[in-house]
């Protein structure tokens, strides 16, 4: 029995509920935030090491054998995702210490953060499709609550769209699970996959697969289902945006990866081709959306969408190399996108605005911040030798090898347009002189004792980006091993059910 | 003997069910046909409660085990506890917010004692009571 597969949910759940028990004391909550997310990070690394060493790690909850109880399964993809969750959680927790308003802390910011992490980790680790739905909901409602903390008009407007569209997605998810259970009589994903290997009506399975695709597509922010994301992601406090940006959409992507490698692999010509075109349009519409924006966080929000396209392209191409690329891309993107939001937060703290027209002078006064921005920004654009380059390289190579010329061409073009947006931010916020109308310009010269708390996670994440870029082999090996597990689901099935499919 | 009893119980159960369902229909027809809110409530509260109680009684006779009978009786008690309270609360609210009474209403002794501004409801005996100082409108 391996406890580490359960710890990534147990720790944040305990930390979250404990924070609620001590809800009157903000100080205690802050300590719990740091230690809780730190412990989560520790546990997730432990899990990844075990998974790497021993293959799939399975825990049958309640000691009920699979497929009857709920199982938690960590394959490499799951473990990687959990590690990323841990990193994000810890980084954002530190960052929050400096940036979270008193009101927010008093009204449940920290418990919400823990429980968001718990939902995310749960979704990554569960081997049960309905349980995944439950974790999705935990994560979503935590994100709802985080989104509205503060209660400003923009937040409310954004939240209505966020809540409604995600609700529709959840209901479609639930519908799909219901129909699937009606057909297969099981909820355990490995069991479902096992039982679906021979069915008399594979077409029906594909139909249900499409429902999952729509639902996860909404969560992931894929075209044409992404509307909730640009409407809301830029409205909450930046630490929250950062957490959302890094993790939430990736849960949808993860789910697509999971079910479209494990379960719905009977009719790849049909399903994955739809995914592929969805991916292409997602990349394109997202990046064009960003090009139209002049607000730091909005640009970043639209870029989430376009980057999601690359990840989906990974699973859509459905070749070993493409899946390596997809996994690699996820790893890289979570870190980079979160970091960009964190940098945006520093810019906001210094200059009091996210509007590019109000920003400026950062390169002159804060060159180090400029450097810290460039690492994730150029990485996002896929410039070498940063993490994003390798991610993009693998995807592009897989696309070319699969002879998907148009989609690959779009992927390349989108890289250029991404660079365009990042450079726009750079030129406006960093290079341009600080505009005269900005009332906060003096803050550029003054000292801020809390700034180091904001810089610490940014530096940490930037180091991760550099590490992946400069020392990509271990990360590649990890992604490759993970892709190998994904492309051959029999390992997963055997690990969970103990049968040889 | 047992056969006779079971037939008898069957008859009783059937009768109670029919009676209960009949009262339900009665209540439904009542709220549909009666002319204003309070009169409709006469139908729904009583006939509805009675109908539900009778059908529950039928259950108690049909499955004469301690646990079932106890629960069926509990349902009846609970209905009798809650139905009039609900009726009172709705009737009062309906009256006070001015849901119009039927034009055929022959008498309204409440109207003159109710002040919609302060929501105070007088008894008409206040003049005598005020000497004792017990008059506390809108407690």
């Amino acid at each position: 029995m391996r406890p580490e597969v359960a710890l990534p949910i147990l720790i944040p759940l305990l930390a979250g509920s404990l924070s609620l028990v001590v809800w009157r004391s903000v100080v205690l909550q802050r300590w719990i935030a740091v230690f809780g997310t730190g412990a989560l990070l520790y546990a997730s690394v432990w899990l990844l090491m075990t998974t790497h060493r021993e293959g799939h790690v399975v825990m049958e909850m309640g000691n009920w054998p699979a497929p009857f109880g709920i199982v938690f399964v960590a394959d490499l993809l799951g473990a990687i995702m959990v590690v990323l969750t841990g990193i994000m959680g810890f980084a954002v927790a530190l960052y929050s210490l400096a940036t979270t308003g008193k009101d927010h802390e008093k009204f449940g910011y920290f418990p919400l953060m823990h429980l968001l992490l718990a939902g995310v980790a749960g979704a990554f680790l569960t081997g049960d499709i309905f349980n995944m739905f439950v974790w999705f909901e935990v994560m979503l409602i935590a994100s709802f609550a985080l989104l509205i903390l503060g209660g400003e008009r923009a937040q409310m407007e954004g939240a209505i769209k966020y809540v409604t569209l995600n609700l529709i997605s959840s209901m479609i998810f639930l519908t799909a699970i219901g129909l699937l259970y009606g057909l297969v009589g099981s909820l355990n994903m490995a069991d479902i996959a096992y039982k679906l290997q021979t069915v008399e009506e594979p077409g029906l399975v594909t139909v249900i697969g499409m429902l999952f695709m729509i639902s996860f597509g909404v969560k992931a922010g894929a075209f044409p289902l992404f509307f909730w994301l640009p409407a809301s992601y830029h409205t909450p406090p930046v630490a929250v945006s950062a957490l959302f940006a890094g993790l939430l959409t990736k849960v949808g992507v993860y789910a697509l990866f999971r079910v479209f490698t494990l379960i719905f692999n009977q009719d790849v010509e049909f399903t994955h081709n739809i995914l592929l075109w969805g991916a292409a349009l997602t990349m394109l519409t997202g990046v064009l959306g960003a090009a139209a924006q002049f607000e730091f966080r909005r640009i970043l929000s639209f870029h989430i969408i376009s980057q999601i396209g690359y990840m989906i392209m990974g699973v859509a191409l459905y070749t070993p190399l493409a899946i390596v690329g997809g996994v690699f891309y996820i790893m890289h993107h979570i870190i980079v996108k979160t970091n960009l939001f964190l940098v945006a937060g520093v810019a906001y703290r210094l200059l009091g605005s996210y509007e590019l027209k109000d920003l400026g002078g950062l390169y002159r006064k804060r060159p180090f911040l400029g450097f810290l921005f460039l690492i994730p920004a150029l990485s996002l654009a896929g410039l070498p030798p940063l993490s994003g380059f390798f991610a993009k390289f693998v995807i592009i190579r897989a696309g070319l090898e699969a002879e998907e010329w148009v989609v690959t061409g779009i992927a390349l073009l989108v890289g250029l347009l991404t660079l365009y947006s990042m450079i726009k931010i750079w030129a406006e916020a960093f290079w341009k002189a600080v505009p005269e109308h900005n009332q906060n310009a003096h803050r550029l010269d003054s000292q801020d004792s809390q700034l180091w708390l904001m810089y610490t996670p940014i530096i940490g994440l930037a180091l991760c980006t550099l590490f992946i870029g400069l020392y990509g082999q271990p990360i590649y090996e990890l992604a490759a091993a993970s892709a190998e597990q994904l492309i051959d689901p029999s390992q997963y099935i055997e690990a969970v059910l103990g049968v040889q499919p | 003997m047992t056969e006779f009893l079971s037939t008898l119980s069957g008859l009783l159960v059937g009768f109670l069910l029919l009676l209960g369902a009949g009262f339900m229909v009665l209540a439904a027809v009542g709220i549909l046909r009666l002319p204003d809110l309070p009169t409709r409530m006469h139908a729904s509260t009583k006939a509805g409660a009675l109908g539900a109680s009778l059908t529950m009684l039928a259950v108690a006779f049909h499955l004469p085990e301690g646990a079932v009978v106890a629960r069926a009786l509990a349902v009846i008690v609970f209905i009798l506890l809650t139905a009039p309270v609900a009726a009172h609360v709705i009737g009062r609210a309906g009256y006070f917010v001015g849901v119009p009474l039927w034009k055929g209403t022959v008498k309204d002794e409440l109207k003159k004692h109710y002040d919609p501004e302060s929501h105070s409801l007088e008894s008409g005996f206040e003049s005598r009571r005020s000497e004792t100082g017990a008059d506390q409108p809108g407690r």
Partner: protein
Amino acid sequence: MLDTVIVFVYILLALALILSFVRLAKGPSLPDRVVALELVASIVMGMIAVYTVDTGVDKFIDVAVVMALMAFLAAIGFARYLEKGGERDD
């Protein structure tokens, strides 16, 4: 014999349900609708009773117990709304 009665009772209750719903739809005022809703709850309890007799499964009574004790809360809520000055809605 009882079976026939039960079918007939079902029909009666179904009829009652529909009639009550007509009142709910017609209103005209909110209290009228609430009265209809209350009655629907009562009829549902009746349905449960008949169904219990029909199937002989006593566990369904538990639903009726909960309904009897809790369903009137909705009416209380509506009444409170009205008395607080909410619209009468007709």
